[in-house]
């Protein structure tokens, strides 16, 4: 489908996607419970910082960081890999492939359509952060808000594209769920989800800066909590969107090759 026609269909795709998200609201709330790890980390790191700050992080800073992490995770997650695995293995992807719109747009619309439901969790958590930590829990200037929004979009795009690429590996591997699990382990270790990346030794930080994981969640959280000046933020955003571009190209290439191998099992 041409880009113009896809964009014309997008409002309906989003509307129907939202209706689905509402239908699966109970499932979503259970998923939210499974993402409460930052709250546990918050308590642990507050204990560590009780007597003296860790790096630049005092107790209040950890509260702000991990509440931001919890909120940003709601906005940057994607589950496309699991869905693609299921649809490839069951052959139900056939129904998507018959439509004159790329399934990639359909998966993206379904993910984005869930945002309003996720905001229902993210906004109260952000308000709580402001109440507990003060106004420094959120961006202070318009440019910081703009950069933060861009970083959240970039973080979601990296998550989504990585999910689709790994999901599409199921065309070649039969199932790529284990690959996704490996990705998630690296994500937890390297993204700033378990601890602020800046607390790691310099060598590790350099390595992490070259990997995509930090840009999924660490960067949006850092921008939300005002960790960077605008120059540094701009460089990091550039790196993030470079990853978006690289993963975008990789996703399209893997998907196109994979669809050629699709066996459309069943039926």
């Amino acid at each position: 489908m041409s880009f113009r026609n896809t964009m014309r269909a997008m409002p309906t795709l989003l509307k129907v996607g939202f209706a689905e998200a509402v239908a699966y609201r109970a499932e979503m709330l259970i998923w939210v419970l499974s993402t409460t790890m930052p709250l546990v980390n918050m308590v642990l790191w507050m204990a560590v910082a009780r007597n003296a700050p860790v790096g630049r992080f005092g107790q209040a800073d950890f509260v702000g960081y991990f509440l931001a992490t919890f909120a940003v995770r709601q906005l940057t997650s994607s589950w496309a890999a699991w869905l693609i695995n299921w649809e490839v293995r069951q052959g139900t992807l056939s129904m998507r492939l018959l439509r004159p719109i790329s399934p990639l747009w359909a998966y993206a619309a379904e993910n984005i359509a869930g945002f309003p439901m996720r905001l229902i969790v993210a906004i109260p958590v952000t308000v709580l952060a402001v109440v507990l930590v003060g106004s420094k829990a959120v961006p202070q200037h318009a440019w910081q808000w703009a950069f933060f929004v861009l970083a959240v979009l970039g973080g979601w795009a990296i998550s989504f594209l990585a999910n689709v690429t790994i999901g599409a590996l199921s065309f070649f591997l039969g199932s790529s769920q284990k690959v996704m699990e490996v990705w998630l382990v690296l994500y937890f270790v390297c993204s700033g989800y378990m601890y602020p990346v800046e607390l790691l030794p310099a060598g590790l930080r350099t390595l992490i800066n070259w990997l995509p994981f930090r840009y999924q969640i660490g960067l949006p959280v850092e921008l939300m909590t005002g960790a960077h000046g605008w120059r540094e933020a701009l460089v990091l955003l550039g790196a993030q969107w470079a990853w978006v571009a690289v993963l975008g190209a990789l996703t399209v290439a893997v998907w196109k090759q994979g669809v050629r191998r699709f066996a459309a099992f069943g039926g």
Partner: protein
Amino acid sequence: MISVRGLRKHYKVHKRPPGLKAALRSLVHRSYTTVKAVDGISFDIRPGERVGFLGPNGAGKTTTLKVLSGLLHPSEGEVTVDGHVPRLREEAFLKKIMLVMGQKQQLLWDLPPAETFELNRAIYDVPAAQYKQTMDELISLLDIGDLIGKPTRQLSLGERMKCELAAALIHRPRVLFLDEPTIGLDVSMQATMRTFIKDYNEKYGATLILTSHYMDDVAALCPRVIVIDKGLLSYDGSLDALVQRIRPEKRVVLRLSEQVDAARLAPLGGKVVTHEAGTAVLQVRQEAVNATISRALAGLPVTDLTVENAPLEEVMSELFAENKARREAAAHEAPASESVPA
């Protein structure tokens, strides 16, 4: 409209015997076998034709439909549908076709069918006026007015299938592939679906290819059948001609007012297929039908009499048995011919 030349679709499939030992061996050495789902078939279909694909399970019917609808890339051969190469999945091609699979659904499971209809309207870019007209028509013909607002998961199989068909036709496809569209439906629902599909074909001149294990579907809808067996095309022509070729004999069904001895049926000619209380079925050569009927009317208490072709199920079984015997004979001859010195 549809042209298929030398179509082959082969799969490489991992194969291992059962058991732990075989599982461990497959860790280091995997053996593969090639499955020839479709092995070199050719045919043409004219615009507006209704064609039935017949064949036993695993014959390659659904694989062929999936290739024609662009889901599968052929291993070899040339396929065009209304001037398009299906595997390229061009937008213009996808807007002209639809594949309805009795065992797969496009309706969104937790939402009412109306949401899927609306989604398809947007995806297929159907103008508002055409959408309204099509929906009014589909709702009325399929009698789904009360169903489209209920969540799909709460609909019965038959209700769901009617909504599936409606969702598939919103963009008025010019080519309709139907893979077992009546599977699992009761007799009355099957008849409704058949009538609707035939009307759609006649009204819009759509080309229709159907696979079904229900011979009634094929007999009601398809003047032409293509028989595929083990990936090879074994018959392409009219259904009547196929019956004539395989089972030229007619069935004379006699309903009798009283039980008669088997001995009284013997002089009628032909072979007694069944003889139960009040009913006798004779298999008779076509040229002997009149004589058999005359003798039956003269000598037996006949209350009703019909002349029928052999049931399609029997015709197909015989055709498949013939094909199998031919394949086995060919396989038997092959090693002998190889041993002949040059």
